[in-house]
């Protein structure tokens, strides 16, 4: 039975597209057949992050409007034959698609894939409504910032109103050093407010920048903390019980200690 999962956040720039690309890749690495859909029509990114931009011939709007068949618009990943991308149209906007059309599209994809991941646009308007229309489950990505958490809270309310069941939560870009100094919201702070099921904690990692610019998923990078975190999220989505990585920062602890000593002296 296929699962359609929408990745959304409310606020922009918290890592929806990176999360979609990496979860899609990780699930495919585990042997699942995965389609990732870019629902950010007019501002497409997922193809760039996955390094597939130069292979686009048809897009989601072409399929919805009948100019292309589903198969024609699905782009195979560079490395993983079981991973496909449905790119967004760049020259249109969110109004080009209706929620009903998204439901029909996801229902077609259900027949051929184990997972359909939908990368939602930021915001709570039509684009977001399209992105969740066909979803069985919703994953909300937030960063440990007050503004992002506030928007995530708004999204939780909308997802509940749309009767998609309780959403899952990924806290992205945690900086352990700042958390240990009490200068950043901790995962516990975020959970206390949102009170939904935590499915991933992803540390802030420079490897994301390099991998994104190369158009490669960070989950291929064995040494990357963020890559390992996304692999764990994919395993949890598959139903495995994976403990959360201890996100500690040795250097940070030392600095914190020295900081305390310094403060005592002054």
């Amino acid at each position, binding site marked *: 039975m296929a699962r359609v999962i929408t990745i959304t956040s409310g606020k922009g720039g918290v890592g929806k597209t990176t999360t979609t690309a990496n979860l899609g890749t990780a699930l495919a690495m585990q042997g699942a057949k995965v389609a990732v859909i870019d629902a950010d029509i007019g501002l497409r990114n997922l193809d760039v992050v996955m390094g597939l931009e130069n292979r686009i011939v048809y897009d989601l709007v072409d399929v919805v409007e009948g100019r292309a068949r589903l198969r024609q618009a699905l782009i195979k990943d560079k490395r993983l034959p079981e991973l496909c991308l449905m790119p967004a149209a760049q020259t249109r906007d969110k109004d080009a698609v209706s929620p009903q059309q998204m439901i029909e599209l996801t229902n077609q994809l259900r027949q051929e894939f184990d997972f359909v991941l939908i990368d939602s646009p930021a915001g*709570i308007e039509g684009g977001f409504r399209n992105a969740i229309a066909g979803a069985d489950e919703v994953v909300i990505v937030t960063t440990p910032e007050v503004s992002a958490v*506030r*928007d995530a*809270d*708004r999204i*939780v*309310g*909308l997802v509940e109103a749309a009767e998609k069941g309780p959403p899952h939560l990924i806290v992205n870009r945690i900086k352990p050093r700042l958390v240990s100094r009490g200068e950043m919201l901790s995962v516990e702070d975020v959970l206390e*407010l949102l*009170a939904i099921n935590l499915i991933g904690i992803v540390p802030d990692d420079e490897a994301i920048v390099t991998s994104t610019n190369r158009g490669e998923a960070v989950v291929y990078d064995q040494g990357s903390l963020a890559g390992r975190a996304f692999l764990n999220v994919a395993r949890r989505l598959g139903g495995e019980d994976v403990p959360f990585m201890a996100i500690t920062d040795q250097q940070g602890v030392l600095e914190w200690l020295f900081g305390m000593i310094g403060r005592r002296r002054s």
Partner: protein
Amino acid sequence: MSDLISIKGGREGLRLRLDDTADWQVLIEALKQQITQNSGFFAGARLTLEIGDRAINDAQMSTLLDLIQHHGVQIEALGATARESRSAARASGVVARPLPRYAEPTGPVQASESDGMLVTRTVRSGQVLRHHGHITLIGDVNPGGELIAGGSVVVWGRLRGLVHAGALGNVEAVVCALELRPTQLRIAEQITRAPEGAGKLGPETARIEDGQIVVEPWEGPKRG
């Protein structure tokens, strides 16, 4: 509230019931006054208008709509017994519903302010609980969420959003919460903010004393 207008609440939302015998101009003036005076309660509300047996034409319907929408209120539907009124509503793009004849005379709203609403959930950012009577919430109000009540508000949980008690002008209304940390607290016409920084934790209650909002730790019901 004037005798010509009353607010009813229920699961299906707010209903504004207008007297159906008074002179039209007098009624419109009374309505204007009510909404202007209680803008804190009405702004952003969606409600059903009930006009009873009164027959109104297209021009009267649009007067009514203009007045209400001007104050940021959306009309969900119009309830009327007269067919003429319902077709006037439909002509203005408003859903019209037949209405049983008013059983009881429209009374002043103070009588219905004792109506309570019990809700068990989290009020999240962007969500609003609005009720003409008292609100009891079992759950949290997150920042960005709003509670607006004609009567008092009791939150069995953390109150961190905006709360407006006595939004129809009742200065006797109180706000109680297990953790009272609202972004803004309003009672009737008074507005206050929670002090900066974490204060004492524990149940607290807010009320108006000598024209000012006073917040005190909960120590049982006040006597006298």
